[in-house]
């Protein structure tokens, strides 16, 4: 199987170099670009399997690149954002980015996100989902944790289903709300916070230190397999 091609866009040569080295070491082929223009040109010339995109570029914002790229490419986009700039991060997700990591990021985290993005299959359609100790039977509406039955309300079950079918992927607040509660609900993220905390109390061994239901501050939630090989 040929290596997946990752386009890395960042104007900091040191960051570019570090990413390139690590990605090659992880078995990817790497193209680099340091401006918005070069990024779009490179993506048009050699369509990448995934894009890692810094939001601050000398000739414009990464958000613009993201939007442009989305109009003709399906390649997943992983955005590099600066800590504390929630608005920018949300704007990038709105513009079609699939996930983000915050600078300064850990390389393991970045590689894990990239792997999740490259698993291109859409939402899982398996009737029974197994994520770590959590087993979800979608037909029978049954959930067990470590073999122990857990009783969920219909809302909690639906929320868990949506997250589980998109295991490892960032699900934004509006995306979850719309899928669980319908198109009228896109901005009511506080309901979500409450349901997530209820789910954690039922599923997590230690709800104060969640291992399955992870918060992505300002953006959304992610259900991960805590025992998955990293």
């Amino acid at each position, binding site marked *: 199987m040929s290596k997946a091609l990752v386009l890395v866009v960042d104007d900091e040569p040191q960051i570019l170099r570090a990413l390139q080295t690590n990605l090659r070491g992880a078995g990817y082929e790497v193209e680099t670009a340091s401006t918005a223009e070069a990024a779009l040109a490179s993506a048009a010339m050699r369509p990448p399997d995934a894009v890692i995109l810094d939001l601050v570029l000398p000739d414009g914002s990464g958000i613009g690149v993201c939007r442009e790229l989305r109009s003709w490419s399906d390649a997943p986009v992983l955005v590099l954002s600066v800590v*504390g700039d929630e608005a920018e991060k949300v704007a990038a997700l709105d513009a079609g980015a699939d996930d983000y990591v915050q600078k300064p990021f850990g390389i393991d985290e970045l590689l894990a996100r990239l792997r999740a993005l490259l698993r291109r299959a859409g939402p899982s359609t398996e009737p029974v989902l197994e994520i770590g100790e959590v087993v979800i039977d979608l037909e029978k509406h049954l959930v067990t944790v470590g073999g122990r039955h857990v009783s969920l309300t219909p*809302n909690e079950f639906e929320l868990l289903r949506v997250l589980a079918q998109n295991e490892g992927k960032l699900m934004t607040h509006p995306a979850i709300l719309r899928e*669980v509660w319908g198109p009228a609900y896109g901005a009511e993220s506080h*309901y979500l916070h*409450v349901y997530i905390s209820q789910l954690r109390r039922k599923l997590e061994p230690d*709800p104060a*230190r969640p291992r399955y239901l992870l918060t992505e*501050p300002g953006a959304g939630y992610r259900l991960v397999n805590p025992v998955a090989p990293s």
Partner: protein
Amino acid sequence: MTGAIFGLKTVAPVLGLAILYLLAVLPVAVLYGLGYALAVSIASMLAFNFFFLPPLHTLALTDSENWVALAVFVVTAVVVSELATRARRRAFAAAEADTLRRSDAAKTAVLHAVSHDLRSPLTAIRAAGEGLESGSLQLGESDRAALLETIRLETARLERLVANLVDLSRLEAGAAPAQRELWPVDELVSRALDALGADAARVAVTLDGEAPLVRVDAAQLERVLANVLENALRFSSPSDPVELVVSSTGDDVLVRITDHGPGLETESLERIFEPFEHGRGGAEGTGLGLAIARGFAEANGCRLWAEPHPASGASFVLAMPSAAARPTLVR
């Protein structure tokens, strides 16, 4: 005023009573400046003329002595207000100079603390990096691992320092408006623990049975809890747990963080929340964490204070006003 002076008419000569009108002019001159003082002195003069000077209840004047008295009265009022204005201007200038001087001192303190706190992790990272690079050193596998660990830990320290500085400058500039939303307190606690990294394992958490809700900016409250926890961990020996307990009083949701470190003197309970104060003798850290924690807490309508612990160590209490009803969403 006129009524009160009228009562004194029988016991004091009429012209002497004019002086009493200055009691109205003086405070106005001192508090509101020349414009208002002039208006009040002219009004006073007219009222005095009307009610006290013959012919009574007219604004006409018969006695030339009264003219002179009135002129003196107005001039006095004007001079007093002018003097008061000047004094106020001088006081304002002095206060401004003082503010400037203090902010200069604060900047110097910031630069001093920051350059020290930047330099030590940089030194460690450089030494470790050069050690790894050097061909002449005989490094075993565990030596290399130790050097790499140093780089990782010191980098994390630098990240925290930069995050603290950004937070502080935003708070000082008023550029960190709280985006308050409804959050279960569980979520705030778990985010703070997540921010602490590996050290979070030393925190023993007791959540409230109900997951009470508060209306706060989650990112800012995460900083509050993480900074207080970091402080508690720094002053505890690695074998002692730091306890975090969530409870509700009805009006407030309380998060109490208790350590078993050296504790706090009564007189430093407030001082430790000042920027660049190194509370408990230790010079580790920038002395920014608690100042930022309190700044963010107050920006969210919460309170944060320290209490000496009866046995040993210290407790920090964060009180967040509890949000009323639990929302439900019907599908």
